[in-house]
């Protein structure tokens, strides 16, 4: 059951990154160096190619996928998304479909990103999606919301958080070189994070239905 979920999650993540690669690159052309979609696609293509990943338990799969990103992507997104997935994978101790477990994984993942990136919320990066989503998850869990509602809530939280990166001024990453000129654009890494949250929520929702 967990392995089947791994396959679903891999497929969902790979598909959404492939489908949105050009858009992500376009966002990065505006305030970065125009490679974010190319980078993410190269990384998730490599994850798709590493066929054994989908056969592994989720914790191992995440670690392996994270290492694949680190070794194939480069740039800022390689170490950051790589560290995120590796830390999430390492944090798996129990049933990774349990809400509390997911919460712990996300917390560890975010901590790893902050450490690697020397960054925090409010700097117009992927953290500005990941952290609000994690907080939304905590809220849902504390209210024992049903899974379907939780998934919808996380999606909505990701969408809102992404939008909030637009008026932000970047202080980390390549967009920070722009100073005030970074204002008014979505952050590419925030967009890819939101896409991945959607993909995960959809895959989980799908799993619940079947």
């Amino acid at each position, binding site marked *: 059951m967990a392995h089947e979920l791994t396959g679903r999650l891999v497929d969902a993540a790979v598909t959404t990154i492939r489908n949105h690669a050009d858009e992500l*690159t376009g966002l990065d*052309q505006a*305030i*970065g*160096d*125009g*490679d974010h979609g*190319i*980078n993410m696609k*190269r990384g998730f293509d490599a994850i798709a190619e590493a066929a054994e990943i989908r056969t592994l338990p989720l914790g191992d799969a995440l670690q392996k996928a994270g290492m694949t990103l*680190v*070794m*194939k*992507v*480069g*740039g*800022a*997104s*390689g*170490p*950051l998304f790589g560290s995120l997935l590796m830390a999430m994978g390492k944090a798996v101790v129990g049933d990774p479909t349990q809400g509390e477990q997911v919460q712990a994984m996300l917390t560890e993942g975010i901590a790893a990103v902050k450490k*690697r*990136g020397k960054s925090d919320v409010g700097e117009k990066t992927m953290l500005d999606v990941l952290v609000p989503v994690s907080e939304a998850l905590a809220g849902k869990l504390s209210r024992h919301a049903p899974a379907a509602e939780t998934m919808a809530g996380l999606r909505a939280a990701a969408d809102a958080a992404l939008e909030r990166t637009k008026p932000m001024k970047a*202080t*980390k*990453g*390549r967009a*920070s*070189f*722009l*100073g005030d*000129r970074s204002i008014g654009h979505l952050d590419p890494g925030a967009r890819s994070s939101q896409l991945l949250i959607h993909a995960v929520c959809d895959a989980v929702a799908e799993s619940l239905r079947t």
Partner: protein
Amino acid sequence: MKKFINSVDQVLTESLRGFGAAHHDIVRVRMDPTFVARAGAPVKGKVALISGGGSGHEPLHAGFVGKGMLDAACPGQVFTSCTPDQMVAAAEAVDGGSGVLFIVKNYSGDLMNFEMAADMISGDQATVVTNDDVAVEDSTYTTGRRGVAGTVVVEKMVGAAADKGADLAACKALGERVNKATRSMGVALTSCTVPAAGKPTFQLGEDEVEMGVGIHGEPGRKRVKLEKADAIAHTLMSAIDGDLKPKAGAPHLLFVNGFGGTPSMELYLIYDAARRYCEARNIKIARSLVGNYVTSLEMQGCSLTLVALDDELIKLWDHPVHTAALRWGV
């Protein structure tokens, strides 16, 4: 997109293979993980210098591998920092027993990948981060300034010192000293096109230039109307000058760097304009470098770099160097 390519996936591999074949007397190209090592490396007892980062800035860095400069270069994908495995493999291949100095341009991605590599390497190592671009405000709260053309100067000076036998700590200290003495700023007349993206990174009107552009086609300080070369040189030089605060009469290196698509004729014309700026302000030009050294693919534009020299740095600059792209004294 008009480029000489076979497929966007193969650009880097084929280009590096060509580079390796054309300069087999100087370098060896290794693939998977990909790096370019000096022929005959490791050099026993010498500090090994490794640099790396996104491709698309050629000749940086592979063109500076060779005697008197780098021991290895790790080319990432176009405009994308290389990955830790490349750096680890390069370090293993060229470490001559006296440690490895990484020269890294100040970009989040580059720093993070080099940090991850550093975690995986057991031998002695140190890092110098270059951040010479005055187009960007320096601040400890942000990523700070970008590393651009001045990186070549750091690589040349430290390469000479390592060649003369300086140890790892001395090489690192020198690299930091040279970086502190170096300021650059660039301007773009046209955009570049990342092969995998297939379309220009940015659009400029027929009469516009991007002042303070980055070497990845990142936007700079502002978009302004195209002016005469003297006015452009003045804008760049006064930003550099104001930040470096050069000592009157002291020797300096003036470096005009082409971004890849600007003809030599215009680079020398800008050099002439920048030199007149310096002469009018008693900034003495003791050494000069003009050419395409840190490029942004086919971008038209250039950057100016000013380096405050002293006797030691002049000697290091003049020290023999034999690489694909910089060669003298040997």
